[in-house]
């Protein structure tokens, strides 16, 4: 069962632990359907949200998850522009410890920062995205969403489409899906194929027409617009023409394939509006499931003896 006091990445989890989180999240999803959507297990605990990168969705989701569990929440927003040096980060950590937080939810532009913070004793660290490394709770909510539609993972084929190189979501999703026995395809422009991606046990495609054929799950990635103009692809229109998910391309997938996106979406860049709002889209469900999964993670970590 759960051994670590922290959730740093999917890479560190066993498939048994992943299933335990998903089962627990199902219980919390039921709680979220009730009139009274709050339960008491984290009463008296404090969750510190520490976001060194701008984020509204993930931070709000963690905040609400903590509040639904009766914890207190403090939000630290650090200006994205300030360069956080090692020494400063250590001071931040000590400050949080002195404040008596029980959980730290951290997002940082550098990979490995959550691992650094996890050395503090008596505090559970949850990685909410570190650089291009991992974003474990996003992968867990993706798994939960897939499970609720497909009932299983073994034998499923999922295609992850977009800028895989710069995506921590993609990395966590790849670890998660391959651990549970799904086949994973990567569809991305040749300029955006990550180095050494072959080691992760995925198939790589450079066209939607080939890669989407007969897949069960389509996971679109957000095109990080801030990277446009760095020579990875000519223009947004060109990108949409080649790699945008359109109703026409969706027909290549299985009839019951689901369309996912971690948000926020760039409509007309990576995904057509009629697909994003169409019957196969589970994008809003992902948001609700994110709440249940984050409640499960906080709750299970609270039960680990420190």
């Amino acid at each position, binding site marked *: 069962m759960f051994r670590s006091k922290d959730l740093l990445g999917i890479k560190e989890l066993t498939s048994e632990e992943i299933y335990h989180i998903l089962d627990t999240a199902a*219980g919390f999803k039921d709680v979220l359907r009730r009139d009274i959507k709050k339960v008491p297990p984290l009463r008296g605990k404090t969750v510190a949200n520490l976001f060194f990168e701008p984020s509204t969705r993930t931070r709000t989701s963690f905040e609400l998850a903590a509040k639904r569990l009766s914890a207190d929440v403090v939000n630290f927003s650090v200006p994205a522009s300030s360069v956080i040096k090692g020494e400063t980060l250590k001071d931040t950590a000590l400050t949080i410890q002195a404040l008596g937080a029980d959980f730290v939810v951290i997002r940082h532009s550098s990979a490995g920062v959550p691992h650094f913070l996890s050395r503090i004793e008596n505090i559970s660290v949850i990685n909410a995205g570190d650089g291009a490394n991992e974003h474990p709770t996003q992968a867990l909510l993706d798994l939960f969403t897939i499970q609720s539609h497909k009932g299983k993972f073994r034998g499923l084929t999922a295609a992850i489409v977009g800028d895989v190189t710069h995506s921590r979501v993609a990395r966590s999703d790849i670890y998660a899906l391959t651990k549970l026995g799904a086949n994973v395809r990567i569809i991305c422009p040749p300029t955006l194929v990550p180095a050494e991606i072959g080691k992760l046990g995925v198939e790589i495609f450079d066209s939607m027409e080939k890669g989407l054929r007969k897949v069960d799950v389509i996971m679109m990635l957000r095109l990080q617009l801030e990277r446009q103009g760095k020579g990875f692809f000519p223009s947004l229109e060109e990108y949409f023409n080649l790699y945008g998910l359109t109703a026409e391309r969706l027909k290549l997938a299985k009839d019951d394939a689901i369309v996912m996106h971690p948000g926020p979406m760039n409509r007309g860049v990576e995904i057509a509006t009629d697909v994003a709002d169409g019957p196969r889209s589970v994008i809003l469900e992902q948001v609700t499931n994110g709440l249940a999964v984050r409640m499960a993670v906080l709750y299970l970590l609270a039960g680990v003896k420190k």
Partner: protein
Amino acid sequence: MAYEIIEKNKGVDNLCLVGIQKGGVILAGRLAEQLQSIEDRLIDVGALDITFYRDDLNTKEEQPVVKRTEIPCSINNKTVVLVDDVLFTGRSIRAAMDALIDFGRPAYIQLAVLIDRGHRELPIRPDYVGKNIPTSFNDLIEVSLEEKNGGRDRVVLVTGERG
């Protein structure tokens, strides 16, 4: 016990049975069958998982496993009979009452248990008891039910086996 419930509540109008996961759910189902055959009408039966309401999340070695909660009817102004297999410290019942009250405001909450083994740590008492079994604090009571273990119905007292 079914007759006691009918007698105390003057019938089964307004009654809802709620079993506490896991043994209590099976017993609640059986009690409902009894009540139905005596009174010849359907009785609402629910299942309650109290995991999120426990007070020992941080003190137990094993990790919590969440089971289903299903309350099929509104419990507002109903008489809810909580059903559990063994009544011991009373802490599960405290958690169950907190959980139940998040679903509504029952007129009455009553408690039916198969075994009362004593050693209450809270001011909680059962309304219906299958059997009182005096135990020492460290004894273990194992309730086997056909539906749960696939074996036969039996209650075993193991002396001095509790943690």
